[in-house]
């Protein structure tokens, strides 16, 4: 129980309490619940993992008084606490455990995708493919809590369009940035075996975590994926030959 209480204390201190009823007009299309105006806040089954430890988490075993809404409602009528209703006095608030389904309204940006040589590849030689995605922090509301959702790129899955794919921990980099020679293999490069035009796509798997305002990032199990395509690689064969004259000198010559 201690962890839940510690978190509740932190949240109450920061004044971050769940805004219970967001009601934009698009919500009103169907139905909006009117926000309650008392001291009642949602009690959430908890983030109370037996054995979970928090570094330096001293905290107190004292029961937290109920958090109050940040903005008092227009209706001042507060339920009386004179009765025996325990909810009036003792409410412990702990952030809920979230799943990917709760984050459906948070969409990380799609990665960028490019390659070198730009739009080209050579049969039998490495074609470099480079994707870029960065960490994103998106503020919003989940289950009535003001949160920041963080997406950290965890994996890049490249599909090279010829049926093969590869998974890399990074999006790769250009040969120049890697300090490598052109057409040398990289972590994200691919060797095409045949000529043709191949649509390349990359899927970034982001690891989500959520901050309920306490500065503590709580990971959400699973990944949120974002895919980019639209990068076609035209793979050509390169042959060298000795000829008598240049194409300028003899436009009808072989290969001209």
């Amino acid at each position, binding site marked *: 129980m201690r962890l839940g209480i510690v978190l509740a204390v932190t949240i109450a201190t920061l004044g971050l309490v769940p*805004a219970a*009823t*967001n*009601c*934009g*007009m*698009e*919500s*009103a*299309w*169907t*139905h*909006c*619940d*009117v*926000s309650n105006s008392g001291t009642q806040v949602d009690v959430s089954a908890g983030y109370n993992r037996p054995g979970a430890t928090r570094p330096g988490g001293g905290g107190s075993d004292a029961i937290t008084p109920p958090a109050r809404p940040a*903005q008092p*409602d*227009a*209706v001042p009528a507060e339920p009386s606490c004179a009765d025996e209703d325990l909810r009036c006095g003792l409410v412990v608030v702990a952030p809920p455990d979230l799943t990917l389904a709760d984050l*459906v*309204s*948070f969409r990380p940006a799609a990665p960028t995708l*490019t*390659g*070198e*040589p*730009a739009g*080209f590849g*050579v049969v039998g030689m490495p074609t470099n493919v*480079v994707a*870029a995605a960065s960490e994103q922090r998106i*503020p*919003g*509301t*989940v289950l009535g809590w*003001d949160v920041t959702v963080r997406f950290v790129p965890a994996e890049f899955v490249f599909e090279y369009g010829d049926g093969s794919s590869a998974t890399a921990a990074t999006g790769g*980099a*250009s*040969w*120049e*940035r890697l300090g490598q020679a*052109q*057409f040398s293999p990289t972590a994200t490069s691919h060797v095409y075996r045949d000529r043709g035009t191949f649509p390349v796509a990359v899927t970034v798997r982001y690891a989500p975590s959520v901050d309920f305002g306490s500065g503590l990032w709580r990971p959400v199990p699973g990944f949120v994926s974002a895919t980019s395509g639209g990068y076609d690689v035209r793979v050509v064969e*390169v*042959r*060298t*030959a*000795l*000829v*008598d*004259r*240049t*194409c300028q000198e003899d436009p009808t010559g*072989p*290969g001209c």
Partner: protein
Amino acid sequence: MLSRTVPLTLAAVLVGVLVGCTPTPAPSVEPTPAFSSEAEAFAAAEETYRAYVDALNQVDLSDPATFEEVYAWTTGEANAGARRSFTEMAAEGWSVSGDSRFDHFSPIEYDEEKILSVVTADVCLDVTLVDVLDSNGVSQVPAERVDRQPATLTFARQDTLTGLVIASSEATDAATCD
């Protein structure tokens, strides 16, 4: 005497165009000018609310591109709420018909110091004409829907045409719609 010199020419030239990875510049945040008077701030807030209603009326739940204008006029909680509602309704295959209407705008407070609630106002969300249908054409509007829903809006400073966006929208049981 014909020269027997054989010019050797390398015919195939491979041109590799190397693309550098230039990072996209971070969008610069320009400070929004403060309002010169309370009346000006209230007028901007009303205009913002009208623009938001207009944007809602352009929404086609089957075309997520039409959501963007609504998102542009909202931030924070209101933005997250809109994203969630649209995502859910679109995922269910629902459609919306009829216009949401501007009904009432009563400014309550202007506080230059507050970032997320520069202006607070009571409005009346009039959705009398709105119907939401599922993919079978069955209305998803429950009987208890309040056709004219009182709500309190807060506005945050942002670089829009009006200098404001809607930051939160909370249903109340105030008498705004009466």
